[in-house]
């Protein structure tokens, strides 16, 4: 059997009969598409759009608080650093007074006649003004270092 207009294509004689049977058999085994009601597709589209909007909204809500908490963390961190800085400043400012007081005590103690050996020893370690300043400098840095070390401050 050939197609129209002297087509060079051909099929076997009973091909179309067997094709028809084959199609009807396959169709009988194929489940038909179910259409619930005409509005279903439209409703599904609206539902999908609504879900998408809700998802976007939820995502935005989820992102914003975390951003705020991040910024508040940063603010609190900077506040902490400021406060540490202030504390350190006060320590550094206050410390010379303490040192001064200790120096006075030290000098007073050294002037007390306790026993000769001690007196001799104190006399031997009597420091000049420059040496004291030098020690003060180290004392100050030690206090600062101790503060920073034991308070776990990250600079």
């Amino acid at each position, binding site marked *: 059997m*050939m*197609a*129209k*207009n002297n*087509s*060079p*294509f*051909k*099929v*076997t004689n009973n091909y*179309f009969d067997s*094709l*028809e049977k*084959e*199609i*009807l058999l*396959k*169709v009988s085994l*194929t489940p*038909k*598409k179910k*259409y619930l009601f005409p509005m279903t597709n439209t409703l599904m589209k609206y539902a999908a759009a609504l879900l998408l909007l809700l998802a976007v909204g939820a995502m935005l809500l989820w992102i914003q608080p975390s951003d705020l908490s991040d910024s508040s963390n940063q603010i609190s961190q900077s506040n902490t650093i400021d406060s540490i800085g202030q504390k350190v400043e006060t320590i550094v400012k206050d410390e010379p007074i303490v040192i001064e007081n200790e120096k006075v005590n030290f000098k007073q103690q050294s002037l007390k006649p306790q026993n000769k050996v001690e007196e001799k020893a104190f006399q031997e370690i009597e420091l000049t003004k420059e040496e004291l300043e030098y020690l003060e400098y180290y004392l100050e840095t030690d206090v600062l270092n101790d503060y920073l070390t034991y308070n776990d401050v990250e600079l």
Partner: protein
Amino acid sequence: MTDTELFELLKETSTRERGFSVLVHDFKERVYWQIRHMVLSHEDADDLVQEVFIKVFQNIDSFKGDSTLSTWIYRIALNHTLNFLSSKRQRYRFRFTSIEDTMFENLKSDSNFDSDEIELKLQKAILLLPDKQRLVFNLRYYDEMPFKEMEQVLETSESALKSTYHFAAKKIQAELLKEEIIKFDFPD
């Protein structure tokens, strides 16, 4: 049985099976040839025609009767065929041979093809056309489909279809001239 009578049978659930048997009986040949002229291989055409009728059966409720039943079925068949060719072309993208060369080589050895030299050269020339141009040419030349009907099936204006067909015929004529086949008349 007219299209309207057949449509009435398909609408009613009780008469649908009988209606579908009539539909397959009436349209199978024409659908087969339309597909066969595009894919060339009998095996591919056989698979595709079955898939088309299953698709028609599954979507029969979505047919509202805006066009004739035949137009609707041919449209499904041709779209299905174009999709098949396009997916086959995708698979051939990274091969050394083109899909057209493979189709032509398979055609040469096909026992379901009356291969005389001129027909083979004609098929080779037709294969050089783009799919949609080839479709218009085949529908007019082999299936003798009127441009008015083609307009409904392909949803393209009649004038555009006519110019597509004439342009395709001209291209084929030029290819055949290269092969020293001097005269080959195509109907208008």
